[in-house]
């Protein structure tokens, strides 16, 4: 599923809203998540999952092609942990084939 398919599905489920509003809805939700992470905050959505930022210490890496060593700077990586309910739903039933 892509972003536009997500917008399409939401639009058909909420026909009283314009597609523009649905697009705004999706981008607002995503932007809030990114902004929170960029401010160093966590985003916890019960049942869905939690987004957080993890720190990676600086290290000496290697160019795998040349074997040269390079300094890899300290950095932050976004991290997602699936919520309990999502984990359970993923494992409850065998995946059903999508009916096109």
């Amino acid at each position, binding site marked *: 599923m892509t*972003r536009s398919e997500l917008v399409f599905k939401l639009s058909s489920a909420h026909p009283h809203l314009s597609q523009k509003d649905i697009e705004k809805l999706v981008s607002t939700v995503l932007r809030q998540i990114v902004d929170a992470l960029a401010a160093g*905050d966590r985003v916890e959505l019960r049942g869905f999952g939690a987004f957080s930022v993890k720190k990676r210490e600086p290290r000496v890496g290697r160019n795998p092609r040349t074997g040269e060593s390079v300094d890899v700077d300290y950095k932050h990586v976004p991290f997602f942990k699936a919520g309990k309910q999502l984990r359970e739903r993923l494992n409850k039933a065998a995946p059903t084939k999508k009916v096109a």
Partner: protein
Amino acid sequence: MTTKTITRVELADAVYSEIGLSRSESAVLVEAVLEEICQALVKGDKVKISSFGTFSVRSKKERIGRNPRSGVEVPITPRRVASFKASNLIKKNINDGLSKAATKPLAVAS
């Protein structure tokens, strides 16, 4: 820097002020977005959202785990797990945001 936790409430508030729907409908719609993503994942689909990232489902085979306290070996059943790979754009946003915060001087010592 104190760490806040953002929840559905903040997301619904943002939708409320951006789109101008009622608060209750904003909350319903935020939930609908999350639910669509969950449903796609449960079906085994990938959810690829440009300039945000990709949610995917990976199947894990059975493997032997160990109770770290007692050392007893137990089989870990095969399972499906959801994973998320952030897009380069949000990785950049996060690193830019946080390196700015890190270089900001702390309270001036007197």
